[in-house]
């Protein structure tokens, strides 16, 4: 358990990249990128975690109670929301590329550059 959460980060990064490299469909490739991204969440989450500490919300617990690191959580939170819009931008590009060329396979898309 001690390093399992860390290894999860390396695993998700490698697996997501495997999906990107072997992908035959741009939409599939973009979803695989979101798996690579979840690797960074796993890493940040594991780094900020403190055994036995509470969530960093002091509404019901007194201020000063040991709590997990709020900074990494803030970094993750904005990232979760922001990256989905980047994915939307990528999807828009992929959809348009399909509409202009009729191709979705990244291996075919390489042929049509200007």
């Amino acid at each position, binding site marked *: 358990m001690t390093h399992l959460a860390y290894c999860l*980060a390396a695993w998700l*990064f490698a697996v997501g*990249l495997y999906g*990107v*490299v*072997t*992908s035959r469909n*741009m939409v599939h*490739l*973009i979803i695989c*990128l979101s798996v*690579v*991204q979840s*690797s*960074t969440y796993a*890493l*940040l989450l594991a*780094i900020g975690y403190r055994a036995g500490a509470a969530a960093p919300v002091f509404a019901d617990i007194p201020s000063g109670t040991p709590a997990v690191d709020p*900074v*990494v959580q803030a*970094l993750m939170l904005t*990232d979760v929301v*922001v990256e989905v819009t*980047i994915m939307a*931008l*990528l999807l828009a*590009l*992929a959809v*348009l*590329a399909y509409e*202009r*060329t009729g191709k979705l396979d*990244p*291996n075919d*898309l*390489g*042929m*049509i*550059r*200007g």
Partner: protein
Amino acid sequence: MLTPPIPVALPLLVAALLAALNRLLPRWLASTLAILTSAAVGCVAVSMLVYSRLDPIVYWFGGWVPRRGAALGIGFVIDGPGAMLVLLASILVTASLVFSTRYFDTVGTLFPSLMLIFLAAMSGFSQTGDLFNLFVFFELMSAAAFALCGYKSEEPGPLQGALNFAVTNTVGAFLILSGIGLIYGRTGALNMAQIGRALGNRADALTLVALAFIACGFLVKAAIVPFHFWLADAHAVAPAPVCVLFSGVMVELGLYAVTRVYWACFSGILEPRQGALRNLLLVFGVATALLGAVMCYAQRHLKRMLRTASVDEMDLRGRGRQIQATGALFVLGAAGLAGLPPFATFWAANMMDASARELGLHWLPWVSFAAATATAAALLRFWARVFLGWGPNVEELPTPGGHVRERPDTSGGHHRTPAAMYLPAAGLLALGLLAGLAPRLTGAAYAAAIHIQDRGAYAQRVLDMLTPYPAAVQDQPAAAGDFARGAAGLLLALAAAWMTLCWNAVRRTVGRSPIARALVGVLRAAHSGIIPDYVTWLIFGVAAFGAASLIWLR
């Protein structure tokens, strides 16, 4: 202390305003507003440049000043190179905005709005002293750049280029974020000065791998071999005003980030191994310079060529980076790829060569000389063919790389080039000349290089609010030999251009010799435009960089 947030906040505010009034604002008003905003940022940059001459400006957002050496908020640390990059970005953005008033036939408020966001991101990127904030502006820059790159979305080429750009840069961003996570896990800090202090002098796997991830992530932006593939596709297809920004400043910012992060955070742990790290970066830099030159010479598509030129030019600077000439970043403005005397690039090349000689790397100036000459030859060849009519007719030459012909950027019949299109170009060239003629600039560049490398003083200034910056600067005179080399470079380049164009025998032997063909063939095959290929190269580069640093730097 009103000025430091302005280069970021003002363009963002105007961008939001322009987008809100998308349907209401006439086109000319939108572009005028955008140009004025960008020019205002330039003025602020000049004032910051003056103020930060002796002592960097440190600014804390939300008033969160550090307590007992621990940063609570996000701080801007503006010194010479940072302010200079803001100035450069604003000049180029202003020029491209002026240019684009006549360049696109349909320009809504979304284009100037995105350009302003791009400018704000570049400004924040060059000013910040916080590692995660650097990443945020990196992402903001990317988001705006992806959309700008695919602007001509009615054609397939730009879409494909933008996709390649977006996917490789996103993977690079994830690498940077992982590196930042590792560093935060070790130090519990995000401020660069604080990280530098907390890391101390111990180099272990964690710090080295974190450095490798962060450096490789930024090198994707800087388009260093083997992370450079996206630039090939993005540049060939992006609209010209956007291209200027990509190679004029965005690519440099990638190198600036590596420099900044290395000297502020990691220089302590690698102090005993600096030579090894220099050699490692040299391998990447020289590979990029040579590849850039060869590709450039073998290219026929002008924009594709300019793109490889920027790969090559960057790498000259990338190589120089370790060797004291961070300042090169800062003098280099606009033109003069061959490094000819009046241009600022000449001085930059000069400084890098001098520092290379100091370090005993006597072969380096010759490599950079050869690369610069080949690049210049390629450009001159293009110029000679188009404007002087040298060489065979264009129809004889097959269109390389692509099967889709690009539509001209301006449709409709402009009989003469409109003033809005050549004035910015002339202005930029003049600035490049001026920067080269300004007498004290090399001295200032040396001062900047010395400042940026002083990790202890940097941390004291940022975290303890002391002002220990030294002001020892000596100017580096140019030797007659340097001038001679610059002139010889131009002559050689001209000769090479003439030979390949007009001397049929040479053209045949060079063009048909199996070695040259195989070489160019291999290079073209590597630049396939296929995203999985590029991602494979990227991860190969990261693995090579990481493994090499684990073996040699520990």
